[in-house]
């Protein structure tokens, strides 16, 4: 945004930024997304590396013509859906109430 905010609005942001509620919100957010991002990136890269360098493992048949490669690929889908669902639950419980309260605070302070 090109326009700078007024000193009063800047002060409101500063105050919220220093509040324990905001620290809690940011802590809750980072506690979820940082380990999860590291986790799914490692899991995905493991899949790419196995596809490249572990053909024997990936070609092992598990059930009929279904092999490890296909199951590993389908598991990537499953974990993606799972993490997305987990995040939607987590954020609604641990982040949204805090964010809503802080936003209401901010609007009270700025509009007064």
């Amino acid at each position, binding site marked *: *945004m090109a326009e700078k905010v007024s000193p009063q609005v800047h002060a409101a*942001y500063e105050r919220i930024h220093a509040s324990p509620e905001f620290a809690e919100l940011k802590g809750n957010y980072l506690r979820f997304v940082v380990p999860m991002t590291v986790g799914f990136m490692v899991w995905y890269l493991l899949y790419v590396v196995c596809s490249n360098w572990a053909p024997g493992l990936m070609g092992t048949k598990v059930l009929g013509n279904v092999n490890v490669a296909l199951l590993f690929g389908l598991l990537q889908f499953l974990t993606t859906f799972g993490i*997305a669902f987990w995040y*939607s639950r987590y954020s609604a419980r641990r982040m949204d109430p805090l964010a809503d309260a802080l936003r209401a605070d901010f609007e009270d302070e700025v509009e007064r």
Partner: protein
Amino acid sequence: MSALTSGLVAASETNDHQALTATLFLLVVLLTVGITFWASRNTKTAADYYAGGRSFSGVQNGFAIGGDYMSAASFLGISGAIALSGYDGFLYSIGFLVAWLVALLLVAELLRNSGRFTMADQLAYRMRQTPVRTAAATSTIVVSIFYLLAQMVGAGALVALLLGVDSDAAKNLTIAGVGILMIVYVVFGGMKGTTWVQIVKAVLLMFGTILISVLVLAKFGFNLSDLLGTAADNSGQGSKFLEPGLKYGATTTSKIDFLSLGIALVLGTAGLPHILVRFYTVPTAKQARKSVLWAIGIIGSFYLLTLILGFGAAALVTGDAKDRIVESGGNLASPLLAEAVGGGAGTTGGAILLALISAVAFATILAVVAGLTLTSASSVAHDLYASVWKKGQVTGKDEVRVARIAAFVIGGVAIALAIPGQSLNVAFLVALAFAVAASANLPALLYNLFWKRFNTRGAVWSIYGGLVSSVGLVIFSPIVSGKVDPKTGDNLSLLPASVDISWFPLENPGLVSIPLGFLLGWLGTITSKERTSEERYPELDVRSLTGAGAEK
């Protein structure tokens, strides 16, 4: 447009199913143009034009994201790659899907809260406006134009193939027609029109894909293992067809190349400007989250189904039709599979399903090119014209006028480049767009959101550094020169065989350019004395996480 239509109809008079296909194409055109004019009546302010008035629901935007993201390259390309190279075609799908977790966890909500109309709005928030906006706009336009050119060149060949016309004139006419339609959507419909075109396309695409997949599975009594076994047998490759390695496993270089591509795919999505601007079309961060959740559901189901389409084509399409798939480089796998499960060539069911899937592919092309044109036109008008050139001293009405002119010019340039581009193999441009997005845009976005110290020089260095290194490495890669088919001796590069400037062995630059983008962002930041960006970080931090003061 009428020239295109009459051309299409004339070209297809010879054959019933082509007449049917042309009719369905015409319906798609009428429907989308109708939507566009309906949307244009509700487009008044700059927020309407750039962000659809921020009035879409999470579900609607989820479908629109799906419509924006699932290009003809994924619909026809991935199923085709699976039909021809087996399992290796599936590797793309996984990177394309897992990438959405980056968007969900790290980007979508924070961007919705802290940005306004373009990617540059977010990046320039606490920086010096002119340098950061110029850099971000340059990167936005480069990524979008690369992606756009790949789609348009593909469209010429594809529509000609689907309609069964072969002449160069017909292909040129098709590209011009697609270009004109895309200009119409964007100039008149803005974000509202474009979004609805994408929603309609996503619904059509899911309907078509589910229908064909169910028909394929029914042929095998819903036994996946039977389908896989028949595909492997008919491929002539045996069980190798179901394992990784047929396409990328040839040499160590090709394996590292695939790793490089895999990293660019997973990190690129959350840096694609035409995806990022979609998060501005919803009223709140919660709706932005909901849109990504829906998008993940839709895109994930779609990629699972392409597995059935690809292996289905390998299993069920035989004889002449199979040769046509090979000739088309895989692009005809889904349409010809539709014909096969409908009853085969010459049957009414086959003709109807073939026409239906062809029309879905056509709608897919249109929706994607519209999103790309809108994104680059918005960046020209909002970032370069209004902020850099006029220093913000313009009215919204003025900006929208410039955006419309820009859309017209960009569309024209895309048509002019795509027509001669047909003789070149430009499929690499999609992978390159992902690599640039991951190397230039994502580092700057993440640093800006999470690193207090990040400043103007860091942003500028990471954007230009990622952009120049990814494009530069491709110029010196085997894509541009020095690649020869070991068996036939044919030249596989863009430049004539007599020129060889290649020294970078990989076709995908991400493995080098992405770390470089992050490194330069860090280096630029710590070597600069600028501190104002740090003082304004609390604003951005609070705003992005809580939505306090976010655009409504």
